[in-house]
């Protein structure tokens, strides 16, 4: 008998021992959406120490130029709109960059798949303008460019927009820990600085 059969047999016996099963109806009367409040989104991002820049699409490159020092090395996913990148930085598109090169970069610029206003969260799903998970992980600065149409009010709306089979990274502020006396410290292993550039 395999462990699989043993385990499933045990579980079926356990359920049988507990008497007849009553089907469970899950009450779903919690909120599934709500009015989108962009100011709240921005406030929640700032509350978790993300830096927010609300600019028009043609100002993205200038905004990034102001965020990153001249000459900074920036890794980017291959599908990132090239117009977003300023000429002041050295751009390294991810064509199989090794981890050492990515870790050595000063920053990463990505787009995002969806964002949640209520929690100040952006979600990356590995699309060509967001790239492999490692890109947004190793550099110390993450600049995430987001369109207003990608922002939803609540967590349920965000999940409904996402494709489960894609690798997903939910990001709410920079890396942080509460492990020392339960006080929040920003910046442990992931990027220590998160910039969100919010487009109309």
């Amino acid at each position, binding site marked *: 008998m395999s462990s699989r059969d043993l385990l499933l047999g045990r579980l079926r016996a356990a359920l049988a021992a507990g008497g007849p099963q009553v089907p469970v109806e899950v009450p*779903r009367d919690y*909120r599934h959406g709500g009015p989108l409040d962009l100011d709240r989104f921005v406030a929640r991002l700032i509350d978790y120490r993300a830096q927010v820049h609300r600019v028009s699409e043609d100002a993205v490159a200038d905004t990034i130029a102001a965020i990153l020092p001249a000459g900074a090395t920036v890794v980017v996913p291959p599908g990132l709109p090239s117009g977003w990148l300023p000429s002041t930085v050295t751009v390294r598109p991810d064509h199989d960059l090794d981890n050492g090169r990515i870790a050595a970069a000063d920053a990463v610029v990505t787009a995002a798949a969806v964002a949640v206003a209520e929690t100040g969260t952006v979600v990356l799903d*590995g699309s060509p303008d967001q790239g492999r998970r490692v890109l947004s992980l190793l550099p110390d600065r993450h600049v995430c460019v987001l369109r207003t149409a990608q922002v939803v009010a609540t967590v349920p709306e965000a999940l409904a927009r996402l494709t489960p089979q894609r690798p997903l990274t939910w990001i709410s502020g920079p890396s942080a820990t509460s*492990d*020392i006396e339960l006080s929040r410290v920003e910046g442990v292993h992931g990027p220590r600085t998160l910039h969100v550039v919010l487009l109309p």
Partner: protein
Amino acid sequence: MTHTFLGMPSTAPPGVGHLRGTEPFPSAARRSLADPQLRRNLGHATATIRARSAGMIAEVPDWQQLREAGRAIKTDVMARLPELLEQLEARVTEAGAVVHWAADATEANRIVTDLVRATGSERVIKVKSMVTQEIGLNEALVAAGIAPVETDLAELIVQLGDDRPSHILVPAIHRNRAEIREIFLRAMPGVDPGLTDEPAALAAAARNYLRQTFLTTKVAVSGANFAVAQTGTLAVVESEGNGRMCLTLPETLITVMGIEKVVPTWQDLEVFLQLLPRASTGERMNPYTSMWTGVTPGDGPQAFHLVLLDNGRSAVLADPTGRQALHCIRCSACLNVCPVYERTGGHAYGSVYPGPIGAVLSPQLTGVADNASLPYASSLCGACYDACPVKINIPELLVQLRDQAPHPRAEAAAMAAAAYTMDHPRLYEAAQRAVRLSRLAGRRGCALPPPLDGWTASRDLPDPPAQTFRQWWAGR
């Protein structure tokens, strides 16, 4: 593999893992209570997180509806556990991963050890995971010549300090910044001798220490917060980014999960992703949540193994009331509000699962005889039930487990005699008179005989009244 009668629900075997303490709760607690540094650290930490969590929960207008939904989803999961696990296995396998089934801690440790050996790696990086602590995986790996490196800051503090975790979420909650600095200075290779006790500096030291390890280790071991049967998606909820490192950088990922972590549908995550961060760290959302489904070509580990663990869970499932304990999403809200935990800390509970949830989960996983003092480690104040984001009725479970626990013979005789007396009003009245006389015979505040002397060690007994209520009533 343990050879029990085929298919019968089975408790976690002794001799492996960390579900059993070495001494009863009262004597372990006595030591903790006498440690002023521990008391101060715990008092500060639990008060901080209680306040923060309460504030975040107050922001959510539908918190109670979310709790009800969370409870119902988990109730449904338990009722359909075998079929959901089979569905999960099918989806995860289709997505390019390998699923393993482990009947107990010994088997899970063997599976993981063999998988690591097959990669040729002599080191694994680990994401904080309760279940791998439960089964004693680190000890098994070390015995096989494989070095496990804990990458969560608190777990690292515990590992470097040669200590034991004392909290589900914040395993080093019993340490303050000065103690953590000392541990780092003593045990962290290459640490800056000028390290201060600023939390930011301590976190930076961990970052520097672990960075190369993350980049050069080929195998990672994680737990899972949720596994979606419908899609085969796994989710790990974390803060520091060490989880992302482990789930992204290595070539091989091994995830060990308790079978109760499965949820039926993708949509169900909308409930738990709202409940968990606010109840646990008191955040609207934790900094990072990773979700992955099998293997993604070109992104992340290209070999993924999922180990599904029983280790006593089938025995818990067999009790229709007791199985509520399997609903736990490991947020640790019940620890943070528990007046007992706040004063004794986690080590007193012996098991890796401390606090109120530990007091109902550990005895059920091991069989109550092996953790017989834990169901009594509560004043039944009910704060845990109110705090639980999935509404586990912990006080009810405590009372039930007390009923199943082995009782001291003298106590059992006394309780039976008391019940008999109380079921006979004439005897009861005689006993009331006897209580009064014995109390009048002694001095006010005098000591009671064992086992009741704990009471009078720190409290006076009330004056015996001139007459009982029923005497007064009869004489009106």
